[in-house]
């Protein structure tokens, strides 16, 4: 995690930190943190996870080679520690996504925007999950109800839209930080000012922590301008 730039710090250090924050493990850590904090599922990092997998394999080979060669155990254990951390990150990242899918599978399956954020494997997992759960619900409840009440998405045929699908709450609050100066963020559902019906615009300074409604920074998280913590 790069600390906020300190005034007067030397350039080489900045360069070094900039370099550090763009390694794949750091990028994955960022994606992992965002995924963990966001209430909805985010875009799957296909290329990044592929690269991480390659690196993990490389690290495994290195550890094996070194331990076979009987090199200083301390250095091996450092490699091992690095490897363990990378593996944990990757597993945890995939796990968080799968658990989100489990929770909101019907919503994700019927919303194209969310559906397209899944990886190929996640899509087939979601398909299977929704089929299984739908069948379970039908078998235990819906088939026993009168004809007009058998939809798993709607309460009855009278409902005009799907009103029985669990959705993530996008108006929860998240802690976030921006990398650059952002302006003109519209805070939704803010107190309506009687004198001027102009909704308040919000500014974000780089490196400062904000506690803010997810909905109003959703687009900025998706475009990678804001990191969640």
């Amino acid at each position: 995690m790069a600390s906020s730039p300190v005034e007067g710090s030397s350039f080489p250090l900045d360069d070094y930190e900039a370099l550090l924050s763009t390694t794949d493990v750091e990028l994955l850590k960022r994606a992992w943190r965002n995924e963990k904090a966001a209430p909805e599922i985010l875009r799957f990092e296909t290329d990044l996870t592929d690269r991480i997998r390659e690196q993990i394999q490389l690290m495994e080979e290195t550890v094996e080679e070194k331990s076979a060669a009987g090199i200083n155990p301390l250095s091996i254990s450092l490699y091992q520690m690095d490897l363990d951390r990378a593996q944990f990150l990757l597993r945890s990242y995939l796990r968080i996504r799968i658990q989100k899918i489990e929770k909101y599978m019907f919503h994700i399956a019927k919303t194209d925007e969310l559906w397209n954020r899944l990886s190929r494997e996640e899509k087939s997992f979601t398909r299977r999950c929704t089929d299984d759960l739908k069948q379970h619900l039908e078998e235990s409840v819906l088939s026993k109800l009168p004809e007009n009440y058998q939809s798993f998405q709607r309460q009855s045929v009278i409902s005009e839209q799907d009103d029985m699908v669990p959705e993530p709450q996008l108006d929860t609050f998240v802690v976030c930080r921006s990398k650059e100066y952002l302006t003109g963020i519209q805070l939704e559902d803010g107190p309506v000012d009687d004198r001027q019906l102009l909704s308040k615009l919000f500014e974000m300074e780089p490196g400062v922590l904000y506690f803010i409604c997810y909905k109003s920074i959703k687009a900025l998280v998706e475009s990678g301008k804001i990191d969640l913590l």
Partner: protein
Amino acid sequence: MYGRKACQLVKEFAGGEKGQLTPFNSDLFEQVVAECSQHHLELQSLIRKIQEEGLDVQTTRNADHHGALIHHLALVRNKRCLMAYVYNRAEVMQSLLWKIGQVLPQEIEEKLCHSEIEYFKKHSAALRSYMSKVQLDLTVDMVPPKDPYIQVRVLDDIGDGIVLKQFISRAYRLILFYMKNMAWPLILLKTLHLVILDILYKS
């Protein structure tokens, strides 16, 4: 009173310990389902009555219309409760899958209804198939690794070399007992014999 039984059903689930399942209350469940059919019958007979009186079902706002509406709302509410009961139980099962693994212990299986047991099997198969596609076991590594070492108690003499490598590759799954970083060189120097007493999986 309309909807009371369904409410009881949901309360029973909500009253249980979080993340735990109570036995599937098929008795109460069937009663609620029966109540739904009863509501539907009465709803239909009221609508028929409106039609027989030659009134338009869509626009009539007489006592029969409001009676029918009450039956409809009670039915929909019952449906919500039934769905919530089954759906929330399914969610608990999903989380159990992560906590206790693919095989249900006998005492939990007894609490499930037939359809739920089937669902658990199917869902765990779906998860297994995902994990084999991504070639990663997601059920391990549930907590961040802190230390590449494991704590074990010395009991018996196990050969070195191979054993050490296995330890390294499994380190994140185990709990250290008393050896810290110092243990490694000592083991390599064979001043310490390493033996597993019991492997503690982190819950």
